[in-house]
């Protein structure tokens, strides 16, 4: 998945199982492996495709994320991310003078999943990588018992507590659940003389404009945190209040390193007993 995976608390067998889990998910969901199930599904000519159980579960989670964020986290942006220039493994991306394109998003309501049977319009390309990594982090934590954590490229699931360094400095104790950061500090590239990034605004089909470089969210699990962090990033100035309205602690880093905590984050880290809702 193009990131390091850090695990604490698992024995050798658990570590092997977690390595296998990440490898399996990469084989299914990679956009850069020609034989991945994602690419085979996107290339299938018919409107109806049978998918694996793993694929169906991730797609269901992605569609639920779309419902919960009113379409901000959208699994139908496969063409848009390619149009922005992210068409190969990030390490192989080189500056490209041709202008970046866009592709319509917001078509997640046209996707229907019934068990392992998927129906979607011809030509619509799915990209489930908005949820796959955090879902896999949550699954990896379930591989071993007892206290520990699994961290992969900004996504973290914790059982039993862990102190976690935060973007822009500082740290917090994650006592339960997940912590995820979304932003544009990494995975940036040049296309048509403009810097691009991987967080696509479904309203425009182009990389989103946001005042934030990092948005960190604490959630019941890593998937919840990740989905909420992406949505809060895309919402820009409205992100902190959007998270507060849902009882989610969020921490925002602006362009010049200015850190903003929403009410729920401040309440959680305050020594004074207080509530954010």
């Amino acid at each position, binding site marked *: 998945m193009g990131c390091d995976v850090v695990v604490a608390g698992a024995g050798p067998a658990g570590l092997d199982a977690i390595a296998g889990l990440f490898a399996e998910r990469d084989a299914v969901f990679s956009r850069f492996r020609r034989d991945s199930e994602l690419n085979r599904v996107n290339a299938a000519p018919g*409107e109806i495709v049978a998918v694996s159980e793993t694929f169906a579960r991730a797609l*269901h989670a992605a*569609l*639920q*994320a779309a*419902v*919960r964020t009113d379409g901000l986290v959208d699994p139908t942006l496969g063409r848009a991310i390619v149009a922005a220039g992210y068409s190969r493994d990030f390490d192989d991306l080189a500056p490209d003078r041709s202008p970046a394109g866009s592709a319509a998003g917001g078509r997640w*309501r*046209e996707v*229907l*999943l*019934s068990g392992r049977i998927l129906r*979607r*319009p011809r030509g619509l390309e799915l990209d489930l990588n908005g949820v796959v*990594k955090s879902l896999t982090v949550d699954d990896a934590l379930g591989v071993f018992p007892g206290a520990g*954590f699994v*961290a992969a*490229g*900004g*996504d*973290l699931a*914790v059982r039993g*507590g*862990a*102190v*976690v*360094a*935060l*973007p822009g400095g*500082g*740290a*917090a*104790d*994650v*006592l*339960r*659940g*997940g*912590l*995820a*950061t979304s*932003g*544009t*500090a990494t995975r940036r590239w040049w296309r048509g003389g403009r810097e691009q990034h991987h967080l696509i605004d479904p309203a425009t089909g182009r990389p989103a404009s946001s005042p934030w470089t990092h948005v960190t969210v*604490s*959630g*019941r699990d890593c998937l*919840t*945190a*990740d989905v*909420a*962090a992406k949505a809060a990033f895309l919402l820009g100035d409205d992100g902190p209040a959007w998270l507060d309205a*849902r*009882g*989610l*602690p969020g921490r925002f880093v602006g362009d010049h390193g200015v850190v903003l905590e929403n009410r*729920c984050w401040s309440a*959680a*880290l305050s*020594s004074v007993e207080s509530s954010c809702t």
Partner: protein
Amino acid sequence: MDAPGESRLAAGRARALTAKAVLGAGAIGAFAVFALLARSSHASGSTHGGSVELKTPASFLSSLQQGSDDFEGGQIGPASGPPQASTGTS
């Protein structure tokens, strides 16, 4: 004057011709009706000259809504020691 046998033969031919015409017209009509029905109900068919948006049943969307619990925060607190992990950027 035609013989009675020839008259009956001509009348039979006329009835056969009429029946063929009726059956032919019926077949053409039925074909047209079925073709229109198939065109309007097939997912890839076009009714406005452009592409037709697939409509996912509202029941599926509401099942996603019901199946997705509301967002719930995790539990965090002030750092109690040096960091063991970091949250970078996803």
